[in-house]
């Protein structure tokens, strides 16, 4: 099933006790795009992602994924979405291949072994496939983690800070994977606090600050929000980092 928007969030609120994390978040992610949700630590990115993937119940507002409401059709949502959390969620006792077979069996695919071998090859893990995941490097674990999320080719993929804790080379590998995914029509929602990552990967960017989306659009559109450059000795386009800091205010950067 394809709808024009893969993810639609309207007026989403969530508090933990007295602490309001999401305060009326609105977001619309078009099908087939790479969409970056940008925000500082504590901005509510992970909370939003957990609500999207039915791990957490919202207090108010509505969320649909691939046309299914997370509150009333959570099972349908779980069939459409795949989550890669902040920490590579692989089973360390199992081998890389066994991890993939496990997910394929749970998704009731016809040929779990074949699916696993295909993904191992695609993520350059064929040689490591027979080794326990505990022996993998950070980059390999992340690749396995993302591969596990792609078993059964879910139409919507959510990556929560996919490159946190990775060395620069592994980070580039993950970026390459994400770009390839988008080429195949998968919708990717990616949260990040690295501005460069959003700049590199995303078709569209939303900035989440104190529980609300305070700016949204393509990188070019966001650039226009920034006050016009003054004449200096060297003309310099504002980086996304400049835009981000200007919009959220410098207090956010100093936390």
């Amino acid at each position, binding site marked *: 099933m394809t709808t024009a928007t893969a993810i639609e969030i309207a007026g989403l609120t969530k508090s933990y006790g007295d602490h309001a994390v999401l305060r009326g978040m609105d977001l619309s992610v078009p099908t087939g795009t790479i969409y970056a949700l940008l925000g500082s630590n504590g901005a509510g990115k992970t909370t939003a992602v957990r609500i999207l993937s039915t791990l957490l119940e919202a207090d108010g507002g509505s969320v649909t994924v691939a046309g299914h409401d997370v509150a009333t059709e959570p099972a349908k949502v779980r069939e459409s979405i*795949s989550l890669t959390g902040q920490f590579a*969620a692989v089973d360390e006792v199992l081998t890389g291949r066994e991890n993939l077979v496990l997910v394929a*069996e*749970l998704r009731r695919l016809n040929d779990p072994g074949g699916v696993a071998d295909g993904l191992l090859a695609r993520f350059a893990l064929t040689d490591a496939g027979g080794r326990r995941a505990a022996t993998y490097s950070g980059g390999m674990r992340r690749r396995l983690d993302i591969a596990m999320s792609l078993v059964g080719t879910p139409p919507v993929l959510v990556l929560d800070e996919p490159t946190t804790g990775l060395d620069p080379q592994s980070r580039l590998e993950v970026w390459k994977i994400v770009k390839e995914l988008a080429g195949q029509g998968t919708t990717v929602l990616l949260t990040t606090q690295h501005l460069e990552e959003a700049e590199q990967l995303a078709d569209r960017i939303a900035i989440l600050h104190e529980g609300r989306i305070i700016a949204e659009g393509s990188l070019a559109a966001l650039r226009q929000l920034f006050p016009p450059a003054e004449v200096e000795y060297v003309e310099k386009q504002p980086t996304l980092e400049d835009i981000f800091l200007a919009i959220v205010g410098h207090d956010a950067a100093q936390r």
Partner: protein
Amino acid sequence: MTTYFLHDSTVLLKRSLRHVLRSPDTIITTVVTPIAMMLLFVYVFGSAIQIGGGSYVNYLLPGILLVTVASGIAYTAFRLFTDVSGGIFERLQSMPITRSAVLWSHVLTSVVANVTSLALVVLVALAMGFRSGAGVLAWLAVLGILVLFTLALTWLAVIPGLTAKSVDGVSGFSYPLIFLPFISSAFVPTDGMPGPVRWFAEHQPVTSIVDTLRNLFAEQPVGTEGWVALAWCGGLVLLAHGLAMRTFRSVTRNRAPH
């Protein structure tokens, strides 16, 4: 829905049994404490304990079997805690599967691991002179009660497994359970205990379960004590399962991000 539940539970059961197979040390460390207790009590304290006839190892084994289960379920909590802290639990919860299958696979694995540990402890007891003329039915009854007792403690272990913040918190909860048999008829008869202690000992589940197992091994009629033991086990299973599922639901709905 039921077929999905069975399918998902089976797939996940295979997974967690692999965990046990690949770390057999968890079985070994489970049986070390009960076997050490058995050696200590049979060869050191045993000669000073009046049990009113019969060999002391025969008297002791039922209590030791309960200690084995109490020691084994710490690993169930630990395996679940590892899944939760490592993110596997969330990954599974975000997938199109029957959510409770994740818990059931751990619970069934706990039963398999504990029955293995129990068999090892019985073998050691046989080497130390334990003898029973019990027939197949009596042994099956012993197994049934031990499995029920394992289920009750396992569902209890699910709660710290889901909610603990650290590994220490996970393993700490089982210590009181290991020592519960000491205030029961497991090691010494309750007759010589002072009033309130004796009252507690005779009204806590371990005594009725131990007495029932002892009678089954000794080919004696189990009488009403057997029904009391069964009621304790069944009641504890229901209570622990209810509490565990309530914890599970609240955890899957309202846990704040790490």
